[in-house]
């Protein structure tokens, strides 16, 4: 991964805030999953979030589009604060794309219909225009010829690329990736990561929960390590991998890089 040539010309972090999280806390019943999380994401950032399972990293990014509700603190996405107001939630969700571990394509719709559904019903874009946009993004993820198949006929890697295209069709300002390659065969991981790298090269603001450390080193401008619902360490990738500060981070890195 590291030896791959990456075009960094458009990877620029602006000083415009994309996501602001202040003192955010979340509980599942009695269990305190997220503890005093503070984080500012600037436009154009590529952030990789890693950590052991159960550390709250998925929950954190799922709070950003309100798939999970936080109980204390503040989350402001692109100037809109997430509260119980459904209008705000739908607004944020239409601005923030999300890619899931298990793709979550709609199996009863064709690939093309998967991609045009939300633009047509949420953005109220005419069908023809939505289809053109969808074909554009399907070409971008290199599967335009599968447009009229159903998700069940595609390989895992292809399905995940469709899921990325489906999110892009909404023209999101921010993309969230929740372990996008964890359910894939080794051969298919690369095709998905390549798509994500391409997206980063275009300057997309990205938050990725992933254990692909090669991807983190090549693309991320910031790596966040979480444990027990807290941000334990964050740094730029070179420092983070070569010179980790906390003992917990050192242990984690030795375990995932050690084999």
């Amino acid at each position, binding site marked *: 991964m590291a030896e791959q040539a990456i075009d960094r010309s458009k990877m620029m972090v602006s000083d415009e805030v994309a996501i602001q999280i202040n003192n955010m806390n979340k509980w599942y019943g009695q269990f305190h999953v997220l503890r005093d999380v503070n984080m500012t994401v600037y436009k154009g950032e590529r952030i990789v979030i890693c950590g052991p399972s159960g550390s709250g990293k998925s929950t954190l990014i799922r709070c950003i589009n309100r798939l999970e509700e936080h109980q204390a603190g503040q989350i402001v996405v692109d100037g809109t604060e997430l509260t119980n107001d459904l209008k705000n939630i739908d607004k944020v969700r239409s601005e923030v794309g999300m890619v899931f571990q298990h793709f979550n*394509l709609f199996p009863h719709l064709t690939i093309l219909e998967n991609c045009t559904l939300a633009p047509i019903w949420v953005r109220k874009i005419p069908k023809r225009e939505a289809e053109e946009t969808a074909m554009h993004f399907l070409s971008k993820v290199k599967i335009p010829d599968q447009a009229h198949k159903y998700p069940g006929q595609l390989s895992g890697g292809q399905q995940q690329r469709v899921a990325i295209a489906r*999110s892009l069709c909404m023209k999101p300002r921010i993309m969230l990736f929740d372990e996008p390659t964890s359910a894939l065969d080794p051969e298919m991981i690369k095709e998905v990561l390549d798509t994500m790298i391409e997206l980063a090269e275009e300057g997309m603001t990205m938050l990725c929960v992933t254990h692909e450390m090669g991807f983190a080193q090549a693309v991320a401008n910031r790596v966040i390590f979480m444990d027990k619902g807290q941000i334990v360490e964050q740094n730029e990738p070179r420092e983070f991998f070569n010179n980790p500060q906390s003992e917990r981070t050192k242990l984690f890195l030795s375990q995932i890089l050690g084999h």
Partner: protein
Amino acid sequence: MTEFTPFVRTDMLEQREPPAGQRGIILWARENLFSGPMNTALSLIGLVVILWLASHMVPWLLHGVWNANSLTECREIITATWGPDATGACWAMVRERWHQYVFGFYPMDLYWRPTLAFVLMLVAIAPILYQSLPRQMMWFTALYPFVCYWLLWGGTIWAPVVVLMGFGLFALVFRLLVSGLGVPVSAGLGLVAAAAWWLLVQTPLSAAIHSVLPVGLRSVDSDQFGGFLLSIVIGVTAIAASLPMGILLALGRKSDMMLVRTLSVGFIEFIRGVPLITLLFTASLLLQYFLPPETNFDIILRVIILVTLFAAAYIAEVIRGGLAALPRGQYEAADALGLDYWQAQRLIIMPQALKISIPGIVSSFIGLFKDTTLVAFVGLQDPLKGITAVVRADINWKGIYWEPYIFAGVIFFLICFGMSRYSMWLERKLKTDHR
């Protein structure tokens, strides 16, 4: 070390027939009927039972008499033709009384009306059953209930027209309010407006228009309905009404809103806990106590309402099973794309949940259709008990036993089997997951 001879094939082999005993019926019989001593024994016993049944039934069916005027005459013909000990079916009864099985006591000179309604029903159902038909046909489907009501019961044409205007009022209120108040509240207010229209405006308005423009058909009372006409009227209406109601109940049961959830659970569990016959008695007797004394609430309508409620509770549970089978990721993906609740339900969740539930829903429909015969207990002329009792009361057909049941049974079987085959076809057609 083993030795081998180097080998290169020079001519490819042609495909050959498998050896005898390895193909066709012999192979099938050997694998399925005689694959072991146990299977062979069971097959032989089965064969004996089938032959024994056939030896009794086939002569009875073959000796059937179609031309006779009474059961006694039937028996005389059978004795004369097949000998004194012969038994035979007396289909002459069917020939003479089939119209009562089909129409009950509907006036004979008006048989064209239910017949026309039936043919139009097939046209109205077609676009629902077959997606490939032009969608414009749905307009006729939407109008059909009113046309059907008018054809079957007759009376002034303005009554169904004014009812239709009530639905128009509902749509108008919903349209005006939906952007401000959201789907549930505006639908509720629309229903209130429509109900007020039907209760307060309906009768005087239709009477007033009728006095100016008297267009109408001869009225036919509900107690003249019977046979399969009655079964199909109740069955089809209840099927059409119970599916949307079942969907709403299933969603209500999964709702986050405490009141909606409690009401849905309470309704479903109450209805499922009570036998249908109890509800039918409620329809025919108890409702009369609760309604104002001079209201004449049609008995068929009351039965339809209660059969619908009954079926809806079961269908709600079947659909809840379908909803439970959907992975959480489907809801999350719909949410993450910014679809609102009703969009997500309509576009993502329901198409999949209903597809999973097809076998259960169709089972409920088949059960519902057969349960329409229970209306005999509230004095309606269902094809099985009601009409058969009428036929047997005739001195000519007194003592006829199997033939009416076989006749009614065959028709029920054809309709139910049709539904079952359609559902299997639909399942195959909608199968897109390629598992």
